[in-house]
């Protein structure tokens, strides 16, 4: 067995899914199926105003006329939308928790296992958590402190009730109801998610964070996140996902909308570690997420950072619409696929304003029988003079049964703009391994070092709180071979 064969074997034997436990609590469920009744039920449960219900029904009507897309590379068995539950909330939380003490100990334990800083002492870490347990916001910490400076950080259903003017103005303004199939599905049945509003000139003093967890079986998670950074403000938002082990595939179709007005900056970081399915590709999450940011104001900036290690299928393209002059978009991504996982991810940078800039750094690591794909679009419109784009996509292959693909679309329609794109595909070379081992590292440490170096450009972009977890995750993903 050669060194690389051994490596592949080790990689494939990576440890069992650490977060694969099921929290045993009662839930109330709506009857299965996608229908007007379900939507009305959700809306009623959330005590939503009439306009919100109308908005949902509008999306539902639109959905009837749409077809599920089929152009993507990862194919999946047909999803029976009538067989899914669209709402499930922990029963004993019907009225919502009032303080941290009220939280179901089972749920608390779950979060503890994941290491979420939900408890009081974790405040010192400077993280406010809007934890979403299945579909209802369980607890929101730091709310008061944020309130002082005017930051609104709450669940989207609360925002619908308490800040309807903001929600009505911005919801669906980046991802319209008439967008693609899964976005429209989300618009119709979304259950919960986070809402953030940063008032003009405010620099949010802490990293805001949400943990998503899918718990009840057969529940599609339809999160909706809306972040608005008003003029001259700044916010950094973290999103982390872990899900327990299940045999059946679960659908996760979230929508995330970011809006940056003049001189505002939004940094959105994701660490995604949904259950990827077992070695034979059984089970796992379908992560079909629509994320889109709109640099609506001048000099605004939106930055996406993602570390994708989980999910059976990851299919998402966090995008930036660079509408304001001098606005900037960034996309940093690490996608690790192993066993039968598939990822089709990338970004879209739509340059509309003058002197807009975008940067794309994508790192794909593929092992086992996995398929990893970068698909992206850089489009410079005729009026976007003086714009610039730089794209770099690198792929690393471990083993000869996996695949790495790059499909960038580049459209330059302005002569004063520059677009650069480069991509490489390689493997961990024996030379590199030899060099490291010669210096006393064992095989695992050596591979870990090389892979970490490969991803470094992206991991660096993560906020401190997340960087540690992300590195841990990369470690877990490569455990047995990479340490």
């Amino acid at each position, binding site marked *: 067995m050669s060194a690389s064969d051994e490596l592949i074997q080790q990689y494939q034997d990576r440890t069992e899914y650490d977060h694969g436990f099921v929290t045993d609590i009662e839930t109330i469920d709506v009857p299965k199926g996608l229908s007007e009744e379900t939507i009305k039920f959700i809306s009623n449960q959330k005590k939503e105003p009439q306009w919100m219900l109308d908005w949902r029904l509008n999306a539902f009507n639109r959905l009837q006329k749409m077809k599920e897309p089929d152009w993507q590379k990862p194919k999946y068995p047909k999803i029976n939308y009538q067989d899914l539950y669209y709402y499930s909330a922990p029963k004993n939380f019907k009225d919502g928790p009032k303080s941290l003490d009220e939280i179901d100990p089972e749920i608390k334990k779950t979060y503890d296992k994941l290491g979420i800083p939900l408890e009081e002492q974790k405040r010192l870490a400077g993280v406010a958590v809007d934890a979403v347990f299945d579909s209802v916001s369980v607890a929101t910490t730091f709310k008061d402190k944020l309130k002082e400076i005017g930051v609104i950080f709450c669940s989207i259903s609360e925002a619908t009730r308490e800040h309807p003017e903001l929600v009505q103005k911005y919801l669906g303004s980046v991802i319209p109801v008439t967008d693609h199939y899964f976005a429209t599905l989300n618009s119709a049945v979304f259950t919960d998610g986070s809402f953030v509003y940063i008032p003009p000139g405010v620099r949010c003093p802490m990293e805001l964070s949400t943990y998503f967890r899918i718990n009840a079986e057969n529940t599609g998670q339809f999160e909706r996140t809306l972040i608005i950074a008003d003029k001259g403000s700044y916010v950094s938002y973290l999103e982390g996902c872990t899900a327990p082990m299940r045999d059946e595939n679960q659908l996760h179709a979230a929508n995330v909308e970011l809006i940056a007005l003049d001189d505002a900056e939004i940094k959105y970081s994701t660490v995604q570690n949904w259950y990827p399915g077992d070695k034979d590709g059984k089970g796992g999450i379908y992560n079909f997420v629509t994320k889109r940011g709109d640099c609506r104001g001048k000099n605004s900036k939106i930055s996406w950072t993602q570390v994708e290690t989980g999910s059976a299928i990851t299919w998402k393209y966090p995008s930036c619409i660079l509408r304001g002059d001098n606005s900037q978009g960034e996309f940093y991504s690490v996608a690790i696929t192993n066993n039968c996982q598939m990822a089709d991810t990338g970004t879209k940078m739509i340059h509309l304003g003058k002197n807009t800039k975008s940067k794309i750094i994508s790192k794909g690591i593929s092992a086992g029988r996995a398929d990893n794909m970068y698909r992206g679009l850089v489009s410079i419109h005729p009026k976007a003079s003086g714009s610039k784009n730089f794209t770099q996509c690198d792929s690393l292959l471990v083993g000869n049964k996996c695949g790495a693909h*790059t*499909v960038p679309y580049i459209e*330059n329609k*302005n*002569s004063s703009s520059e677009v*650069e794109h480069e*991509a490489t*595909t*390689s*493997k961990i070379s024996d030379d590199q391994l030899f060099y490291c081992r010669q210096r006393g590292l064992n095989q695992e440490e050596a591979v870990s070092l090389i892979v970490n170096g490969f991803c470094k450009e992206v991991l660096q972009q993560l906020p401190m709180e997340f960087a540690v977890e992300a590195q841990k995750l990369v470690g877990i993903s490569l455990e047995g071979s990479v340490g």
Partner: protein
Amino acid sequence: MNDLDKLKDHFKGFKNFDFISNESLQSRTDAFDRFCKKGIPNLKQEHWKYSPLSKDLVHFEDLKFSKNEDKSYDKSHLEAFDHYPVLVKDGFLISEQVSEEGLEITKYNKEYFYEIQKNQILDFNNAFFMPGFEIKIAKDYKVKKPIVIYNFFSKKFEGNNINNKSFIYLDKNSKAEIYEKNIFEGEQFLFFTKNLEIELEENAHLVKYYLNSTNKNTTIYNFIRSKLQKSSVFEKFNFSHNVSSCRDEIISDLNGRDAFVSLNNIQHLSQKCFHEIKWEINHNEENTKSSQFVKSALHDESVAAFQGKIYVNSKAQKTDGYQLSRALLLSDQSKFLAKPELEIYADDVKCSHGSSSGSIDQESIFYLRSRGISEQEAKKMMIEGFLAEVINKIKNENIKNIFYSKLNEINQSS
């Protein structure tokens, strides 16, 4: 669908032409049925995403088929250097057949059909083709002088659609150079599809040059499928200028160890020219190598599109795939669209691609101007230098000169 109904009538009439053999009739009918089933290319089909063919330039219902019996041609278009001429007029081979030593040039009679799922224009070609040429080079034979293919399009041609099929075969250890150019005598609308199949046996070496230009109203679809066996080499140099709308599609299969394919293209476009390149290289065996190199200089409202794909199958370890596309946008209305694609299933490979587009480097212009060169002159020098990188790779002096003089000619006039 009405469009196709009319075309179906045309097909019934087309079947009566004398060049259609009974054997091919069924295959043609099948191909035509496939075309009807897939429909006319449109922008929503990924295969035709950036294609001028999906832009409604060709009205399939108005196509007229015809055969030109007149075999005369203007001899002044023949190249001065010593060569074997292959004359194709309005889709038919009109020159004398050549049969000497190891070289054979005959009328196309291979009658070989195949289908590519997403490509309905190929089906269209297979249904309506007229016989072009067949060039066969025997084992160990190195063709002494270049073969030059002239595609004449006469003023008097009564139809507006020409489809032809040709075949090039190089046996083991053989070598040939082929130069091809288009000569348009009239300005009428023409839809021309060309389907060329190339087979290279072990250690064969083919170099193909193509000077691609059309009249203002023509739409061209060039399709080449090449199959390379062990250690064979296929080099291609294209120079596209004044092509009103054109799609160049090449599929190259590297089926043997050490096979090498090198595709090079210059797009020097002005006015409303639209030139699209779609290349697909399939590395099917170990140790194969490919290179794709595209340079575009775009004036006025011209559009250039480049879609290059490197596919590496899991057997093809030690693949070396390289791809580079660079474009100069010289006016506010010009556009460059690119989709450089990698699809890789083997781990021990070296594949990379790069793509860039932008305007002329102002610092270089400043440098030249500070040395007393006018801005216009400086720009021309920059464009020439930019495109010459491809031409410099050409080894045949005669053809290199032709390409250079063409480049100068365009540069002077623009």
